[in-house]
């Protein structure tokens, strides 16, 4: 896969992911109204006055709805051409919305969205030898590998994951009540422990994709399956779409390593 093809695919998937995120925020727009939980009059008090005045035009209601729409529009524009202007706007609007929600509204998926946006911004800068697109793809690939590996390292340091009961706790405390296969799994503590250790092993071993790049397809298929399972069990839809966005970058870089 060439760098250009990989970037096109990343941009296309990113547009899909951001469009879906925007639909979610649109459905929650009433929560941003005056009198609602995320009333701007409350959130605004957290910033120094001059910063608040700077963000007022894009964060107060109903302007924030325009910010959401502009972000989605610029993400879609990146599918036509990875250009610095829409890439910059996506980054700035993402940061503004992140502040509007007082930080990441959906944890790691918001962080990865910014990582992809910054990578596309880097790739948008002109360079004769394609240096910036290459750097952007490697940045994405490293962050993707780290997202699994550091998560695995953190889990190994946790008593709950080492003991094997962390997964059961997370499944019981998830947004969805345990049902179907999840309920079946929770009812079998030893199996749950085994699945938990398997998750940690997968995350810790993920950097092997760089050591044995010929196995990239397999690793990415397992990763995609892992995120789909998280959608089913935990409702983490955003994670699935935004992590999928990064996969073409790693597949491309693994291909370079393999050759």
């Amino acid at each position, binding site marked *: 896969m060439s760098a250009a093809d990989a970037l096109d695919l990343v941009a296309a998937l990113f547009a899909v992911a951001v469009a879906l995120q925007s639909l979610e925020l649109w459905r929650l727009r009433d929560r941003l109204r005056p009198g609602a939980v995320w009333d701007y009059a409350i959130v605004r008090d957290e910033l120094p006055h001059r910063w608040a005045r700077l963000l007022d035009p894009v964060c107060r209601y109903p302007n924030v709805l325009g910010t959401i729409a502009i972000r989605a529009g610029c993400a879609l524009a990146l599918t036509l051409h990875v250009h610095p202007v829409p890439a910059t706007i996506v980054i700035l609007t993402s940061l503004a919305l992140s502040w509007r929600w007082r*930080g990441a509204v959906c944890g790691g998926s918001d962080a990865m969205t910014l990582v992809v946006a910054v990578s596309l911004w880097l790739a948008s800068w002109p360079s004769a030898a394609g240096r910036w697109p290459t750097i952007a793809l490697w940045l994405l690939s490293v962050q993707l590998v780290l997202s699994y590996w550091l998560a695995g390292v953190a889990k190994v340091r946790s008593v709950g994951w080492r003991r094997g009961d962390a997964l059961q706790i997370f499944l019981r405390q998830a947004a969805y009540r345990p049902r179907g296969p999840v309920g079946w799994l929770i009812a079998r503590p030893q199996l749950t422990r085994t699945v938990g250790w398997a998750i940690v092993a997968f995350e810790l071993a993920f950097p092997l994709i760089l050591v044995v790049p010929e196995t990239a397809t397999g690793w990415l298929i397992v990763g995609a399956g892992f995120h789909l399972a998280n959608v089913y069990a935990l*409702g983490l839809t955003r994670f699935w779409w935004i992590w999928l966005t990064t996969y073409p970058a790693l597949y491309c870089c693994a291909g370079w390593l393999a050759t």
Partner: protein
Amino acid sequence: MDHAIDWAQVGPWVAAMVAIAFVSFRSSPSLQGPAAHLLKSLFPSWRFFDDAGPIPVLFVRTGPDRDRLGPWIAATTRPRPRLCHLLVNAEVLEHLAHETAVARLIDDIAELDDDRHDTLAQMVSYRMVARLAQLWARARQPHASMHQFKVASMLADELIDDLVLSPPLPLATAPLEISTDVRR
């Protein structure tokens, strides 16, 4: 499969990831306030779902007056899975956002000096959770006159401890000049 590892190629990756993991986990001064939360989005630690333990949960009770408040009810609605959640999942997003708001309140209280508890009601975190409790109570008990909320730590379905307890508040409005019992 016969594959000789080119350590000249992958060695720097291994070294870089070990270095980043070391920097990520060593103790370092932590940023405070909104800047910290925003920077976490730009420079993620990727440490998610690592600490399985009790989580703070918002509870609300309502009644006709402050002396006749009903039982505590968890002010959380766990969404029902739907097929469209493969694409968009605003319900879980809102659920997670509420959880984060409640957790943020507990984090902010932990950073508050003991002699600054009188400022608790002015904190953005507190006002958001108070608003969340008020709106939840209004939606479910619109005829009640008073409500009260608390944040308690829960492990799965087991209540561990009460962390924050508000005084009884009018349901129609939620005055901010209140004293709140904070339990450390």
